Structure formats: structure tokens, C-alpha cells
């Protein structure tokens, strides 16, 4: 008499599927944060009566060496207005926020042309500052 050998049951291990899916989700969330300017060194100026700045597609930063960055990429002041304008596109009023992160000690020679460029591009300027009451 011949015994028939049963086919071995092969399953893909599905115990860790939840973990894998969650990790993939987090991975893409981090990738989606394209405006990574965490490498830029700057200190915010302090002021009173601040409000939440919300979120925007366009951030202009002036670092401690007075270099100008748009969404984390260094560029010259001459390019700034056109680049902001193209980033803002046809966004309606109220959705044309441009965050300005200027180093506390940067001088008017640097930040005023930047403000002018934001103005020319039709941006709604938000100065990113630190509350005086903190610390």
C-alpha cells in the first residue's frame, strides 16, 4: 500500500504585515516633507502677540551667514521673486503664505530685498518669530 504524501502548506507569514504597512506609511510621510530646511542654522527674533503661522508651500530662510534659501535650497536674491511666484502658481488669496525665517542678527541690507521679492511675487508674508515669554 502506498501512502500519499500530503502537500506541505506554505503560507506567507502575515503576522508582521501591520508593522510593515505602518512603517511604509511613515516612510512616505517623511519623504513628503519636501521643505526640509533643518540643516539651515538660524535663530528666530523674539516678539510679542504671536499667532500660529500654519503651513505653507514656500519658506524663505536667511541663515546666520546671511545666505538666502528657498525651501531649503540656496539661491541668489535676483532669482527669488520669480521662484516664489512659480511656487505659488495661481493660488488664490489666503493661500499665498510665504514664511520668512530670518536670522535674528541679519541686517536690513539682506532682509529688505527679500521682503521686496516676496511682495513682488504677491506673497502673503509671515515672519517666523519666537515668543518673548518662552524660556
Amino acid at each position: 500500500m502506498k501512502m500519499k504524501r500530503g502537500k506541505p502548506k506554505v503560507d506567507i507569514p502575515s503576522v508582521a504585515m501591520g508593522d510593515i504597512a505602518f512603517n511604509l506609511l511613515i516612510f512616505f510621510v517623511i519623504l513628503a516633507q519636501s521643505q526640509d530646511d533643518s540643516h539651515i542654522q538660524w535663530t528666530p527674533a523674539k516678539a510679542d502677540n504671536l499667532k500660529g503661522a500654519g503651513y505653507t508651500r514656500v519658506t524663505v530662510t536667511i541663515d546666520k551667514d546671511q545666505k538666502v534659501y528657498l525651501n531649503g535650497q540656496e539661491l541668489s536674491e535676483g532669482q527669488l521673486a520669480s521662484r516664489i511666484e512659480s511656487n505659488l502658481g495661481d493660488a488664490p488669496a489666503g493661500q499665498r503664505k510665504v514664511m520668512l525665517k530670518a536670522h535674528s542678527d541679519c541686517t536690513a541690507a539682506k532682509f529688505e530685498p527679500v521682503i521686496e521679492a516676496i511682495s513682488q511675487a504677491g506673497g502673503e508674508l509671515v515672519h517666523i518669530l519666537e515668543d518673548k515669554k518662552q524660556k
Partner: protein
Amino acid sequence: MKFRRSTKLLVDVPAVASGDIAFNLIVFFLVCASTQPDTGRSQILPKSEQTQEQKEQDEHLTVDLKRNAILINGDPVKVSEVKARVKAKLAGKSRPDDRVVIVKSTDDVPYHAWIEVTSQIEDAGGIITLQLEEERTVDVPQ
């Protein structure tokens, strides 16, 4: 002869998923840290104008910012007095055009000083207009 039955069971905390848990915690705090909301002051900027008549500028309140001094219509004031002085000068002026304050800064004025003074002007009801070197103006309605 009696054999003693061992009743003690070996109980281990399941440690298989510890690596996953630790990794997820790291990622969670990383995401929290990178999405911390910013705070600030908003200024709505219309497009800048190339020139403006000198006569019109003369009619408005002018704040000159220098590295170590603040002048309102030529009179030196302390930083702490700016709000009160601007408020007094703008008293009784209700039309937005009358509340325009022209801010002229020298190249060496630091941003923290500029933001402190312009914040006080806005808090006093002024509408800031920047006068830049190349005779360009930026209107900042409140």
C-alpha cells in the same frame, strides 16, 4: 517513592517585536519633532511700487531706523516709547491712507530691532510702508 512535580513554568515576556516597537517609537518622535508648528506675525504685502511722490511721503509719519537710534519725524525716541508715540501721532486718523507709516532703515539695522519696531507700529494702528534704497516702496496693510 514519590516524584515531586515541578509546577514552576518558565514565563518570558515576548521579545520578538521589541525591535519593531522601538523603531516605531523613534519614527513617531522624529515626525512629532519635525512637524512642530511655527509661530509668527503675518503681513499682507501687495506688489511693490517703483516710485512714490516725495510730497506724499512728506505727509506721512516717518520712522527712521538706524543701528543705535530710532527717529520719529526726526525726533529720537526709545524703543519702549515707539508704540505710544505712534499711537499719539495717529490719534484721530481713521482713514487707512492717513495711518501709513513710512519705515526707512539703514543697511546695518539688525532684523530683531526692525521686527520689534515694526511690531509696535502695527500694534499702534499704523500701516507700514517700507522705503528702500532704490526709491521702491512696499505697502503693508494691517
